[in-house]
């Protein structure tokens, strides 16, 4: 074992840098102990306590070096390392400030990075309320795409939004258009005089697509979440959204679309709408209420444009067969609307999202009689993407129903738009071709949607499907096919 103490005069380095040098020397092969430090009283004591000889006549502006190593070679290596460390000066990246790239870990942090107006949240439903509360605290209007947010948390969030005059869209708000910008599963719409408040994602998409079909543009479509018009939520977001649209001069006609609302909440919204200065068309879905297509027709009348019945693509009506209607939907409101029409024409239907008085399917989702499945329901999307993005679950079921002898007709929806599947028609068309079972499709999309409305419709029609731009019309054709088969 060799010990060596050295004094280097007139060399100042800061203590932190020297601690680092000491550490690096100690890490060298054969070096058992090292101290490189300014010769303060404290450091000289430290040197002695480490077993080195006390250097004479040093002052705090001298650098002391103590090295203990296995042999002279190791001492020499340590000296070389020391020389290069001292020659190099301080290490580090200097002022090349990569720190500006620190990504914001929360919505509030993000809102501090740049002035924003809106937050779009698609974090897991179990914790989405946390992020939404953060967004509202940051003063942002907030859209919660996430589903599986509890009703209790929805009410609490909407109370906070009401406190602060902010608009909370959602939870489970699949689509919105704000100042012409599509959020979530939005369709590409042209600007125009209509503003929509929607307690229904696919209901709003369908309305926008129908209006687009007759050349009516939409500037805003404010989704409020499918539960907003329930007794518990009491239309808190709907009322705020109505006031926002009423205050916007570019909106000349407001439309409210909703899944079947609670009666007293519908009254509340109706009364509120009557106080607005902007003309308002109310389109609540429900038994005996106008369907979405009829609502679109009323909007056209309000705007003063002529109405043309939505398009139908496809050839002759296929051969009838005995059995039941099977509706396989990705849009909850489209499923509701189809069930409302089917119930009035065919009687009670079964579903995983039954209407009041409807039959609820058990957990196996085995079809029984006329059956409607919503693949976008919360229970079906836990831990998996929405079927508008990942169609595999519905495709599987479609094939099963097409092969099922008791299935007379399959009715399904396809929803186009930004963020939806790039080509939903082709997989479905391939299955339609393989089987004889008649298939009726409600194709929801606008002229400018990225998938190409015309191309999607043509692909389906060529495969033998009957394709409608109106969900109500598609449903009625499917019902007619079932009736004919029973006759």
């Amino acid at each position, binding site marked *: 074992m060799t010990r060596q103490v050295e004094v280097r005069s007139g060399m100042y380095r800061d203590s932190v840098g020297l601690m680092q040098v000491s550490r690096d020397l100690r890490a060298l092969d054969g070096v058992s102990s090292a101290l490189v430090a300014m010769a303060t009283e404290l450091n000289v004591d430290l040197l002695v306590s480490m077993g080195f000889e006390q250097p004479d006549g040093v002052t705090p502006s001298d650098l002391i070096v103590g090295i203990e190593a296995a042999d002279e070679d190791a001492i020499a290596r340590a000296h070389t390392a020391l020389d290069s460390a001292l020659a190099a000066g301080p290490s580090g990246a200097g002022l090349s400030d990569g720190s500006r790239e620190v990504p914001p870990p929360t919505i509030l942090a993000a809102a501090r990075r740049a002035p924003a107006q809106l937050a779009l949240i698609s974090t897991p439903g179990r914790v989405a309320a946390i992020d939404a509360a953060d967004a509202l605290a940051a003063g942002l209007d907030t859209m919660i795409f996430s589903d599986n947010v509890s009703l209790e948390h929805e009410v609490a969030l909407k109370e906070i939004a009401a406190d602060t005059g902010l608009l909370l869209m959602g939870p489970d708000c699949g689509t919105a258009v704000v100042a012409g910008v*599509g959020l979530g599963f939005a369709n590409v719409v042209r600007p125009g005089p209509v503003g929509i408040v929607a307690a229904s994602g696919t209901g709003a998409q369908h309305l926008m697509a129908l209006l687009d079909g007759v050349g009516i543009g939409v500037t805003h479509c404010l989704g409020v979440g499918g539960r907003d018009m329930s007794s518990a939520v009491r239309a808190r977001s709907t009322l705020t959204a109505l006031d926002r649209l009423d205050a916007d001069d570019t909106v000349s006609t407001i439309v409210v679309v909703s899944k079947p609302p609670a009666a007293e909440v519908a009254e509340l919204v109706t009364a509120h709408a009557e106080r607005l200065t902007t003309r308002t068309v109310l389109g609540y879905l429900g038994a005996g209420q106008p369907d979405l297509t009829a609502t679109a027709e009323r909007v056209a009348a309000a705007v003063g444009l002529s109405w043309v019945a939505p398009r139908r693509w496809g050839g002759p009506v296929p051969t009838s067969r005995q059995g039941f209607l099977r509706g396989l939907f990705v849009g909850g409101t489209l499923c509701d609307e189809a069930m409302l029409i089917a119930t009035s024409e065919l009687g009670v239907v079964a579903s995983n999202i039954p209407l009041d008085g409807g039959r609820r399917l058990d957990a196996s989702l085995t079809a029984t009689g006329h059956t409607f499945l919503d693949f976008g329901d919360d229970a079906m999307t836990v831990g998996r993407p929405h079927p508008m993005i990942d169609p595999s679950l519905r495709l599987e079921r479609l094939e099963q129903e097409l092969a099922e002898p008791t299935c007379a007709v399959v009715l399904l929806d396809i929803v186009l738009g930004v963020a939806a599947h790039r080509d939903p028609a082709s997989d479905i068309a391939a299955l339609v071709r393989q089987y004889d079972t008649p298939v009726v499709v409600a194709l929801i999309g606008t002229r400018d949607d990225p998938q190409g409305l015309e191309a999607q419709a043509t692909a389906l029609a060529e495969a033998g499907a009957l394709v409608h731009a109106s969900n109500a019309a598609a449903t009625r054709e499917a019902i007619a096919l079932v009736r004919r088969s029973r006759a």
Partner: protein
Amino acid sequence: MTPGPAADLTVVTAGAQMFADALNSQGVATVDVAWTPPVAGTEDALTAVMLDRRRVGANAKALTAMTSAGAALVDVRPAYAALDLEPGHFLHAGPPLTWDRMPGPLRGALIGAVVYEGLADTAEQAEARLDAGKFTFEPAHHRGAVGPMAGVVSSSMWMFELHDETTDHTACCSLNEGLGKVLRYGAYSPEVITRLKWMGDVLGPALQTATRVTGPIDIVAIIAQMIQMGDEGHNRNRAGTLMLLKEWLPALIRSGLPTGDIADVVAFVSGNDHFFLNLVMPACKLMTVAASGIPGSTVVTTMARNGTDFGIQVSGLADEWFTGPAQVADGLYLGNYGPADANPDIGDSAITETAGIGGFAMATAPAIVRFVGGSVSDALATTRRMYDLCVGENPRWALPIMDFRGTPTGIDVTSVLRTGQLPQINTGMAGRVAGVGQVGAGLVSPPMRCFERAAEALARRVSP
């Protein structure tokens, strides 16, 4: 015509990247959150606390209280006068703990304090009496005081007394002994006791005279200047020390005290770069105590360690402690010391980070950034990360290198748990064994457990 880019709309996105992409493709600017799930098991408590309608207002109030509190040095006097501290009763750093759970440095400091007070003749006798339960202990925080490292205060030790005119609160801290073998690091050798006696006989009275003649000295203002001079107020207090000395000098020179004593006092203060830490700490205590006890607030008002437990207090929960095991700092060691020699984290000095400086102001102290791991860029990133954990900024303390942005202030319990990122504390490291003293310095974080427990307690207090 498809809609043109909405130049005036900026959207914050959290969650699926495809929605941000869809917005960007429409010409809309997005700020995308680097979202991570909250700390596992805290989801329900966090949801309840985030949905508490009092939270935002209460936190704004806490921030205002914290950033508008004053802190003036008004007196220097012994603890029996400043704190009504009885002989045989000792203050210590961190949350409460009993003798049997006390770590080496705290035991060492208590042994030294017992000897210093003349309550035992030798260290062995002092330890035996401590062991036998002859003395009583209390966290300094419970008396509105703070102490670095072991934080031990006995009745005849001299204290700085700081006062906040806004709230009429007072906070105290002992006089800093310097580095090396010192009581606060758990050393109790004769030289330690001798120095303490000199501090009591000469230093304390001299500074009392100087302070009383100079009048209240605005410590908040000195801190504002020092953080523009490369001090972050926890591990570097060099500029602050000299500025304080400058305030005292005329009164000291005119005091009529023996010239030798004045020279010793000036040499002692100017020779100890950490002298001003013991004024920064009580100033920070006055700020954080001003923000304490606001119902619904999730702002942290205390972070303190006793070498065994790390404890935090939260504004909305007033004086309740939430503890977890203290961690060993990651840093650089003196001489041959290594991680095995270091005691877990100890001291009330994390009050500086609680008030938004120390590790939070790392960006302003490039001279010591190598504790962070090497680069100035890392130091800047550290401060930027701390902004993301805080409810706001302190405009009185501006960081030049951050374009004079105020220091990040008011750690939010919910932000810590939501991001999984912990406050960064700059700290000294005490030896594990009583009597060793300082072994290094570095960085440390609180255990997540403190924040988890605090969130649970906050959730229980949310009115339905």
